[in-house]
């Protein structure tokens, strides 16, 4: 049942504010009581990762990391969620690393495979934008340089 993981699309569907609030209050209640169950922590962190607000996502990933540290038996699962969280945050590099580690363990994991391709796509897209920007900058620079040279040579 370890392959029971949500697809990346699921992470884009955010919970309602009330639902997240319920998870948050449950988490905070358990924190105050001194013992946080893994499930509660995960519920809250997963709710946060699903949120569209970046700060929430960051907090969610942080909680996932805590689970990862403290619960060795949950690490396999957490790998995927961490990858997904980083993916949502836009840290494609880290997302790729976590996903790669998971793929290493479970090469046939459908969710991991699909997440992998998604990451690649995103990275490529950003790369193109970046390249375009860099290219544009280079062109502008070249033009400026050319004008400067021309001016200099005209004198």
């Amino acid at each position, binding site marked *: *049942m*370890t392959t*029971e*993981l*949500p697809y990346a699309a699921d992470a884009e569907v955010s*919970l309602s504010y*009330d*639902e997240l609030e*319920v*998870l948050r209050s449950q988490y905070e209640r358990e924190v105050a009581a001194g*013992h946080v*169950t*893994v*499930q*509660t922590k*995960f*519920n809250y962190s*997963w709710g946060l990762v699903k949120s569209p607000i*970046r*700060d929430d996502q*960051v907090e969610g*990933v*942080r909680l996932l*990391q805590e689970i*990862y*540290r403290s*619960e*060795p*038996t*949950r*690490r*396999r*699962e*957490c*790998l995927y*969620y*961490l990858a997904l969280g*980083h993916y949502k*945050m836009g*840290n*494609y*590099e*880290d997302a*790729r*690393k*976590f996903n790669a*580690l998971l793929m290493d*363990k479970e090469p046939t994991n459908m969710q991991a495979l699909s997440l992998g391709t998604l990451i690649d796509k995103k*990275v*490529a897209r*950003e*790369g*193109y*934008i*970046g*390249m*375009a*920007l*860099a290219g544009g*900058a280079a062109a502008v620079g070249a033009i400026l340089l050319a004008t400067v040279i021309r001016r200099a040579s005209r004198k």
Partner: protein
Amino acid sequence: MANPPEGLRPKDREKDKKKHPRAPLPPDGGMAGSSSASTSGQGGGPSKFEVVSRAIMSPFHRRNDSNKILSELAPVIMTPRMMNAAATVSSRPQERLRNETSTNSRAVDFATLGRAPLRTLGSRRITSRDLQIVEATEELLDADVPEPEGVASNVSLLRGFNATIPSAEKGRSRRRQIRNVDVGEKLGLKQLGMSARGLMVDEEEEERQLEREREHEAQSVASEDDVVVVGGRGKKGKGKKKGRESLSAGKMFGKEELTRQTSEILLDKENLHVKRALIENEIAEITHKIETLDKIRAKLENDLLKLQEDELELDDELEGVKEQLAAERANTVGHHHKTATPLLHIVPSSRRRKGPAFLPSEHDDLPPGVAFMTLEGHITPITALDFSEPYGTLVTASQEDSQPRVWDLLTGEEIGRLRGHHGSVKCIQVEDQICLTGGEDGNVRIWDLRKVDDEDDWEGEGEVVNLSDVAEEGDEGEGEMVERPNGVGGKSIRSGTAGSATEKSGPCVRLLEGHTKAVSTLYFEDDCLVTGASDKTLRQWDLSTGQCVMTMDILWAISHPTSPGSSTLPGYFPGAAAAAGSFAVPTPPYADGSWEMYQDFVGAVQFWGYALVSGSGDGAVRMWDMRTGQTHRTLAGHTGPVTCLQFDEMHVMSGSLDKTIRIWDLRSGGIFETLKYDHAVTSLQFDTRKVVAATGENGIKIYNRTTMQNSTLLTNGHTRPVEKLRYMDRFMVSGGRDATVKVWAL
């Protein structure tokens, strides 16, 4: 005024004042008025100031600019505030980190190359939390990822999530709502229905059945409105159809809705199962954690106990040092007033309270629990031993040997022998230079250990504290006998005994005769001595006069039990009780299989003040009042002869041939604790922290009273069972059936 830097403002004011010295002061007077108030009289004032302030300000502006340039050029000279600002604004560290990591995989190089400028251009804020997360990546990736086990392999986090989020309850609340809406509409009719339930239309019956099943399945806490009273059927034959309808079950849902509800309920059930699994797992986890914490607590408690022990040890040490201090002070006083110094005067001290007065400094470095010295010379099992202090003088006696030997514990050599007894010596007590021995011949002898054999040699080895006394012996030796009333109050009585000793030759100072059979035990403090003998009596002696002060008959005590309700004391050792003949019991075999006939009717005595405690062959521990000579309490419990005992403020400890040590509570008279051993207990000594016992085995048993743990000293120990032992502080001497005497560091 504009905004000049803070530091300049007062100066400006000063200037301002100087510029307009004749300006009228405001009514409130003095400097309190603002500069504008003081300058209000002059028309061009403010503008002038603007000019001035601008003039002052301008270099600052310029300097700020230059600062910025500088900081950009060389980050080193940036002020901390600037550094902070830069750190929060720029994403430089992250960028660097990313570039570093990206070089690992060639495929990504392209992308990151492009992305870097995008990042800096984009307005996304990078918080410290982001950085924290990114930095943790490497560490997390390095961590081992084990196969999931336990609940982790059964219930995935997502499954748990779906089962526990609030929306998981949606289905149930929806169903309830559907039913309740109906009820709400016909609330008035509901009452009617309750009174008129019973009549069923066929289809309704069917639906009701289904609904009831579902209710049962879902284990839903049925709301009041959902109650279907089964027993109510047929109660009233003439129910109305309307009434049935008002019950929630009566509503028509349609097949589709019902199948949907069924699947929903099944899902709910599944969720319930998941939740249960999760909670069970948590419980198991917590149990585990509690166990771990318990272990930690036990360990910490142990540490605490150790600290307590250390503290007790320090207390003891402090007490010892103080005692020594008092002793030395008394000595110096004595030195100044020579006439007042008694011959053998030593500050009396209980053997239980002995400080580490003469502990050679190396002793603490010795490994604890190891016998570091073996004294060989005896040829028969050791029967009695005692020593004056650590590294002081030791006297030992063995079976069928009428001459106890005197040893120097510093060198481990035999100094000499105590000649005088006829028959073997059964008990010895040494206090400083005084030694008392009791023998099979029924006599007690008092010895001056300084006169043993070669006197000069002995004095050369003498203890520091007594040097002054020793030196004075020559002129002050003929001290008068001091008559003292019977009791323990006297302190200088020994001067009398010793004084008379000087007239005799040989170390034996005095002979106490009176017992008709072997003296098996003795105990003295100051000038009061109590002996116990196989003639079944205890005798109290005044050491200053050598007279027997009182005789206490144990047989009489046995036949006249004083404790109310204890006339038929159970558990008395049967063989010996009230036997008028000679007492003889075979000892239970030692660890090596040997045994012998035990004939000491009185195993041990000890007193403090007027309270005397004796342990005897009938297994009873008796407490006597030495003013009346009566027993006032008998502690019954041992099933064999008592061989040894000791008491302090709280407890009496007695060892017996019945293989136990019993710790008695002095206040209640009950057994506080029983320590069981495999063989007969022949000797014991205890303090607040431990009980040291010889229990018929080669090893010496130590019971730690604070940690309740037993340990055995074997290293370099006896090769046959230990018979007697005695310790002070961390220095112990034991005598065994292998005829050797071992000296231990504890």
